[in-house]
Every structure is written in C-alpha cells, then in structure tokens.
C-alpha cells in the first residue's frame, strides 16, 4: 500500500498548504462585517471548472495509485511471471506524447486567438490519441497471439486491466475533446472556448504522466523503487 500512502501524503500536503492559507485560526465569534474574504485578497481565483478538474484528477490519481499498490503487492507472490513488453508500446507512448504536445499547442494558439491553430491542434491531438488507443489494442492482440492471455498469469491480468482503465479514461477525455472541437467549429470566438481547450490539455498531460508511470511499472524499470518503498513499510 506504499504507493497510495505516498499519494495520500501528497494530497494531504496540498490540502494542508491550502488550509494554512485559510485563516483557520480566526476567531469568527469576534469578527463582524464583510471585512474578511480571502478570495478577494488573492486577486483572481481559478475558474470553477478548472478547480473541478483538479479535484477530479485527484480522484483519478487515487484510483491509479491504488492499482499500483495492488500491483506491487501482488507481484511479490511466487507465481508472478513478468510478461515481455511489446515494442509497440514505445510507438504508442510516442503517439500519446505527440497528442499531449498538440493539445498544448492548441492551448497556446487559443491564447493568441489563433482559431486555425486551435482547430489544427485539437484535431491532431485527437487523431494521435486515437492512434494511441488503436496501438494499445494491437499490443493486446500481439500479447494474446503470443499466448499471454488475461487469466494465464497475474502479471498479464494486471497488464490488461491497467491499460484498459487508462484507455477508458482517455476515451472519456476524447468525448470532452470532441465537444470542445465542435464548440470551436461552431463559434468563431476563441475566447469562449479557451478554458475548454486548456482543461483538455491539462487532462491530457495528466494522462500522459500516468501512462509514463504505468509504463515504468509494467516494463519493470521502477522495480527498484518499488522495492525501496516496500522495505520502508515492512
């Protein structure tokens, strides 16, 4: 459970930092009037949708941290046989990186009010994300073709499960991306969709980060790190 504990410690640190800004030592029974509003002092606070996305990412992060915890606990059992990582995963990773870069580009274009750039970025980002998903499916087929079925070893089961959960989250993202793209298409005003584009880009970067961590785990690169964490807790 070390991964989830580390993740929770991170969340607790962020929550603690935020709470420390909220004047929790105030004595509300002595304070009357409209004088204290921290949101006023901080100038402008982020838009509500962005905060919503941030909270959602914390939930998704907790989900993946728990999968990683379960993975690192299960892999110590004697029947674990690591499976060969298909070379295709590297191509897929490239596609996901490209997707993330394209959306970042779309966001910078949105800040410049460059509507063509936004559309180009969104479309190419979506296309490379779809490429990634197709690549993942092909990787599944390769593994199944080589005899690595879902139930034949826990390492296989985890591989299929974790890539599937990640893929599902990306598919959810594609729905949001599709809505954003159609919004851009319909309204010529970039300023109205800037936030949507930004949220898509943030979500994509997050899923890329999660994927890189998962890739490290599935390829066994992070085994040493996992061992250290395990020893810390046992």
């Amino acid at each position, binding site marked *: 459970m070390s991964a*989830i504990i580390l993740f929770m410690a991170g969340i607790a640190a962020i929550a603690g930092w935020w709470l420390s800004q909220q004047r929790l030592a*105030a004595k*509300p*029974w002595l304070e009357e009037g409209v004088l204290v*509003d921290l949101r006023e002092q*901080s100038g402008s606070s982020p838009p509500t949708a962005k905060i*919503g996305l941030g909270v959602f990412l914390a*939930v998704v992060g907790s989900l993946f941290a728990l999968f990683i915890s379960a993975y690192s606990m299960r892999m110590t*059992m004697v029947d674990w046989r690591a499976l060969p990582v298909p070379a295709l995963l590297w191509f897929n990773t490239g596609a996901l990186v490209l997707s993330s870069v394209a959306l970042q580009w779309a966001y910078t274009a949105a800040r410049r009010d460059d509507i063509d750039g936004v559309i180009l970025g969104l479309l190419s980002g979506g296309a490379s994300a779809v490429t990634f998903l197709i690549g993942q499916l092909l990787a599944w087929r390769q593994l199944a073709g080589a005899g690595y079925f879902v139930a034949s070893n826990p390492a296989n089961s985890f591989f299929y499960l974790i890539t599937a959960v990640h893929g599902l989250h990306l598919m959810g993202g594609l729905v949001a991306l599709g809505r954003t793209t159609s919004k851009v298409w319909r309204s010529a005003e970039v300023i109205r969709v800037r936030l949507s584009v930004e949220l898509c880009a943030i979500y994509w970067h997050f899923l890329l980060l999660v994927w890189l961590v998962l890739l490290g785990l599935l390829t066994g690169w992070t085994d040493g790190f996992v061992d250290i964490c395990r020893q810390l807790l046992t």
Partner: protein
Amino acid sequence: MVDVPFDTVAGIPPAEVGEVDLYHPKSWWTRYVFSQDAKVIAIQYSITAMSIGMVALVLSWLMRLQLGFPGTFSFIDPNQYLQFITMHGMIMVIYLLTALFLGGFGNYLIPLMVGARDMVFPYVNMLSYWVYLLAVVVLVSTFFVPGGPPGAGWTLYPPQAILSGTPGQDWGIILMLASLILFIIGFTMGGLNYVVTVLQARTRGMTLMRLPLTVWGIFTATVMALLAFPALLVASVMLLLDRLLGTSFFMPTLVEMGQLTKYGGGSPILFQHLFWFFGHPEVYIVALPAFGIISDLISVHARKNIFGYRMMVWAIVAIGALSFVVWAHHMYVSGMHPYFGFFFATTTLIIAIPTAIKVYTWVLTLWRGDIHLTIPMLFALAFIVTFVNGGLTGLFLGNVVVDVPLSDTMFVVAHFHMVMGIAPIMAVFGGIYHWYPKITGRMLNEVLGRFHFWVSFLGAYAIFFPMHYLGLLGMPRRYHDIGETAFVPASAHDLNAFMSVAALIVGFAQLVFLFNLVWSLFKGKEAGGNPWGAASLEWQTPETPPGHGNWGKELPIVYRWAYDYSVPGAAGDFVPQNEPPAGLLAQGAGP
C-alpha cells in the same frame, strides 16, 4: 444597500445573477424528474435512500426473528440468513447512510448554507442521482436472479465470496459488484459538486471559518469519500475479473468440492487491504456529516453559540486525515506482522483525541444553555450518548490484545451498530425533524415525533446494549443457529428473544416516522420561514420552501458566523448571518 466593491472580483459570485446564468426548467419533466436543481435532487436522493433502507430494515427483522426464535421460522434457511446479513450491511452503510448524508443532506444544505443559488455543475449533479438510482436498481435485482443476492457478508471477502457453496455466487455477486461500481461513479459526480461548490460558490463574506459545522462535516466527508471510494472500485473491479474471467488477483490455489480450481497464487489479504482502505474512512464518511449536523442542532436548540468552533473545525479535519491511516485495525486477525498491529492500534487510539474534543465541546455547548427539548434536540442528545457508548467500545476493539478474543463475536456487532448505525441514524432523524419545515414549509407532527424518538432510542438500546454481553460470552456473529453450545447459557437465548422483540418494535416506529413525513406534508402545522429561530443562512431565504435559485434577486451578504445566539445587547435572541452590524445600519445600510 451596502456599497461592497466585490462584484468585480473573480471567484466571488456577483450579487445579481443574470437570467442566463441560472439553469431554468422548461417542463414538468425537467422541473421534478430530470431536475438540475440541487433541492429536487436532494429529495430524490433521500426518497430513494429511505426506500432501499426500508428493505434493509425488513432484512434486519428477518435476521432478528431467526436469532430470537431459532427453528421457528422454517422459511429462513442458513443460506438466506447469510444473504440477509450481506444485503442489510451493504444497503445500510453505502446505499442508505452515504447516499442520504452526502446526496440528501449535502445537496439540500450546501448551496443554501453557503449562500449559493445551486451546485456549480448542476447537470453532472443530476447525472449523479440517476446513476445512483441505477446502482440501487441493479442492487435490488439481485433479489430476483437465480441464486439470489450474495451471502459472503458485507465485506465480500474472497475467496469465499466467489466460490460455489456461497449463496449468490452465481449472479448475485456479479450484480452486487456492478452495482458498487455504478454507485462509486455516481457518487464521484455528486462529490465533485459538493466540494467545488463549497470552494467556489460561497457568497460574499462567507469565509471558511464562518461556515456552519454541517457544511464542514459534509465537505470533509466528501473529500474523504472521493479519495477512499476508488479503493472499493479497484477491489470490486478486480474481484469481478476473478469471478468472470478467472484471473487470480485475490484467489489463492484451492480445492473446491474436491476439484482443484483454475485459480492460483492470489492474495485474499490484498483484497482486505483495498477493502478496508475504503472501509475505514467510510465510517467517518457517515460520522463527520453527523458530527456537523449535531453541532448545529445543539447550538440552535440550546440557544447558545457553539463552544470551541475552531476546535470543532480542526477536529473534523484531523479526524478526516487520521482515518486514512487506521484501516488495518479491521485486520488484526488476518495474520499480519505484530508491529503492524502495534502501529495501527496506536493510530486508532489517537483518533479518540479529536473525537473526544468534539464530545466535550458539545457538552460544553449544552452547559448552562437554554435547552429546548424539541424533537431535533432529543435526537441530538441521543446521538451524543450513543456515540460515546459506541466510541468507548471502540477503544476496547482498537487494542490488539482485546480485539483478538472479541473478533467475530456479537460484541463487534454491538460496537459498530452503536457507533455507525444508531448514532448516525439519530443525526439523520434529528436533521430531518430540524430541516423538514424549511423543505416543506410545515412542521412534522409533534406527538408522532416524540413517539418515534422514544421508541427508537430506547428500543435501539434494548437491542444493542445486551448484545455486548452476548459478545463477551463469546457468542459468534454470522451464525444462523447457535444450537446447544456449552458456553452459551439458556439466559442468553432469552436475551436474544428480548432483543428480537425490541427490534420488531423499533422497526414499527420507523413506519410511524414515514407516515409522519407524508401526513405532515399535507396536514402539518404551517412553519413559517424560521420556526426554530436559527441564525444560519438557509433559514433566511425569502421563500419557504426556497424557490428556484434560492435567494430571489440578490445573493445574501454574510456579516458574521452562524452561531450568534443569545448575544449580550442584541435585540433578539439570535442574529442572522446576513444581518449587517449595528455600525453599518447606522450609516443607512440595510439588508
């Protein structure tokens, strides 16, 4: 109007909301069925949760009939008994309490108490309810599929949960896990709303330290639930794959009915870790909203400001954080490393400190207060007593050496029913009696209410207090029929019969409560806008029940905390949160 230059500041809602910013229902369907108004969603959540809760109540009757009069009711066989246990626990903890506190109370109270017009993502909020309803429908469907509902206990421990021989192994467990997954998805949608609304949609002047404790409790519980429910999701998905695809996440090598199963090498303990990483925070997910509601009820009905408001807030946050590092105290008998047990016993006992702080501050709020023994107050007092009772037995069970012999006895059943069954339900009832006038504009019937309170409170004690003694005798839980057992004296059977009769009577009192809810809706006394003389914002709405958008044309401005009762020198015995200070009034400003 006070000239407050805040309207230009981003992040603080402007005083006037343009027509376009507020969602407007266009037909009967979107007003009452597919509504995006948090108040309607709250009522939908509450009705659904109470309906499914009635199913769990009937299940508890059946269990008590079997325990009190073994051998008398031939229609309850051992398999069914296990199914009743499982469904009773699962429904009460997740589909009733979690949904009612967060989906019901959260949806109704958060926007009103923070001075918002609605939740920040109303569409997602609506989806949340419908996914929850779907989860409940899938759950209920387990009663009608071949093999019936699962019977592995509400913890669904593998390997037992999915092996043949366990009731409901066929369809029941699959649907149960699917229902849990749906519930978690639905809850996440709602939870995002509750958290972000508290963060972003507070009206001007409503700082965090001016929030009523109910909002603090619901807010913290929601944050915890958002982070803890994924553990149940992971456990459910993996167990589902073990059952459906034959993977071995949790399933060890074992022989079933003389045949070696296809499973091998999995770890049942891994499931326990995941389950309790959710399961323990879950206890506080239902306790923290109850803490908040009780704080508000006590302050209002004792006409006294809450004692130690800051301590209350800090304790809520501390309990929320600590509850994530105590999960393995549910696993003392799983064969874990003794140092683990030591660590988790320590963290468990540390939680007693902030919890005790809360109990002391409630008692000190009551101290020399002008206590009105209204029905909400009676329930609040009952909550404190019950919670202290259940909390003290928690100290027993938190210690490894005491827990090991008491594990899997009726003592544990008595403990958790006191602390997270009866106590939160007392808060739910207190909350309903308190806010019903705001929700409907009418008071609940007083006589029926007092009857409901006394029968429920004394009856619950009649059921669960003797149960501790049965546990100390060593009477095991989850047994269909204990039979002739040397260490169980005949008097224990008499006690069981007594408890069963009490359970039937308590269940009956809940029917009276439901009748009261419906009857008072039409015949109840007119309540007016603020029948209890409460200071918090939800009682200051221009209309009762609050209209669409809650606040009429302008959002309220908050000038003080929510607990200004019996203020020396003030005109009335309470000062509403949105009443300007005397200085501002003198300058010609008005609300």
